[in-house]
């Protein structure tokens, strides 16, 4: 039963390939909301390739269920195209439309072929409908996963950019924290500071929170844990840039900073760091 339907479909696809291609391309372009994101030549190639793979798979597979392994070549093609589209900036609707817009041209051809066989026409139309629906939905699924992967990668890059550890002096590091700190980011930042301490052998690190608007209990705890870890390793930390509001929050939260040196400015912290590391403090010339 399936075999004959597949064969019939393949027939239609093969016989009317060029017409289908042209109509489908036009359909898509007319529905698609954005142009200029891909050239017509590119699209034409893509559409032709899809039709070929689609036909081939129809001819070989003995199932019309697009989720079966036999349909892997088509899914792979769609996955590739979807990822490409996601990167280019197409929306998920535009991407799924690629598949859905094949319906109309195909229906027209089927109506011609089965004009005197209403039952067969209904059957074939329904089959095509189910098949293309599931393939169209598949592109949406892939699209979603692609976007998630892109977002995850962007988050990582952002994280790298926002965790700069600077060597201020021999044996003195500075970590200027900027922006709101969430638990995950703070952890990553702190870990990279500790790694840098080992790398550079810096005995003192200044963690500057001037650029941090709010500090909550979790962040304060992470800061303290970092200082504790640095000390266990044989280094020390000074926390600088504590603005009055943050000082209030910290006291209010009951965070114990008695064992930590804190300074209101990075400059003051630097002077302390120099003293502790045994360097002489450069004095300003008078006048």
């Amino acid at each position: 039963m399936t075999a004959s339907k597949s064969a019939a479909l393949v027939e239609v696809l093969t016989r009317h390939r060029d017409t289908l291609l042209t109509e489908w391309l036009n359909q898509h372009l007319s529905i698609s909301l954005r142009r200029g994101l891909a050239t017509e030549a590119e699209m034409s190639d893509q559409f032709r390739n899809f039709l070929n793979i689609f036909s081939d798979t129809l001819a070989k597979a003995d199932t019309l269920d697009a989720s079966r392994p036999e349909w892997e070549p088509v899914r792979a093609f769609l996955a590739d195209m979807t990822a490409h589209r996601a990167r280019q900036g197409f929306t998920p609707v535009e991407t799924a439309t690629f598949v859905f817009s094949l319906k109309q041209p195909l229906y027209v051809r089927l109506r011609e072929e089965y004009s005197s066989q209403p039952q067969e026409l209904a059957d074939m139309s329904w089959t095509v409908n189910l098949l293309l629906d599931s393939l169209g939905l598949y592109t949406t699924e892939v699209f979603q996963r692609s976007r998630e992967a892109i977002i995850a990668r962007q988050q990582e890059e952002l994280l790298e950019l926002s965790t700069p550890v600077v060597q201020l002096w021999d044996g003195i590091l500075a970590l200027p924290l900027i922006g709101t700190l969430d638990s995950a980011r703070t952890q990553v930042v702190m870990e990279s500071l500790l790694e840098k301490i080992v790398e550079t052998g810096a005995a003192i690190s200044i963690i500057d929170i001037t650029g941090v608007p709010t500090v909550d209990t979790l962040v304060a705890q992470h800061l303290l844990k970092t200082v504790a870890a640095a000390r266990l390793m044989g280094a020390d930390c000074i926390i600088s840039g504590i603005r009055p509001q943050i000082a209030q929050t910290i006291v209010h939260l009951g965070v114990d900073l008695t064992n930590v040196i804190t300074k209101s400015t990075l400059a003051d912290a630097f002077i302390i760091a120099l003293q502790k590391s045994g360097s002489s403090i450069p004095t300003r010339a008078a006048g």
Partner: protein
Amino acid sequence: MDRIPILRLGDCLIVAIQVDMHDRLAITLQDDLTARIVKDKAKGVLIDISALDIVDSFIGRMISNTAAMATVLDAQTVVVGMQPSVAITLVELGLTLTGVRTALNVERGMALLKQRQP
């Protein structure tokens, strides 16, 4: 049974822990170190843990005990080379190495030991 080698440099003993020690090996090291401090009249003990990717409460206690015994024998202990992930884990575990000074590397550790307490 395998033992961890203890080296001597001047009046300091140096131990580099390079293997994942099972508990008995750790105890043996503790005993060996104590014996050597007496035998060599050592003034300092440097324990290099830069190769350890895990320090649990047992090892932590062994290090603290060693330092305590060294103090009784008038020697100081410095632990060097703790890996960041180990430090983070120990903080989370709530383990403080009481009575143990730490330094980032062997060079710094030896410098610490040279500064004798009067």
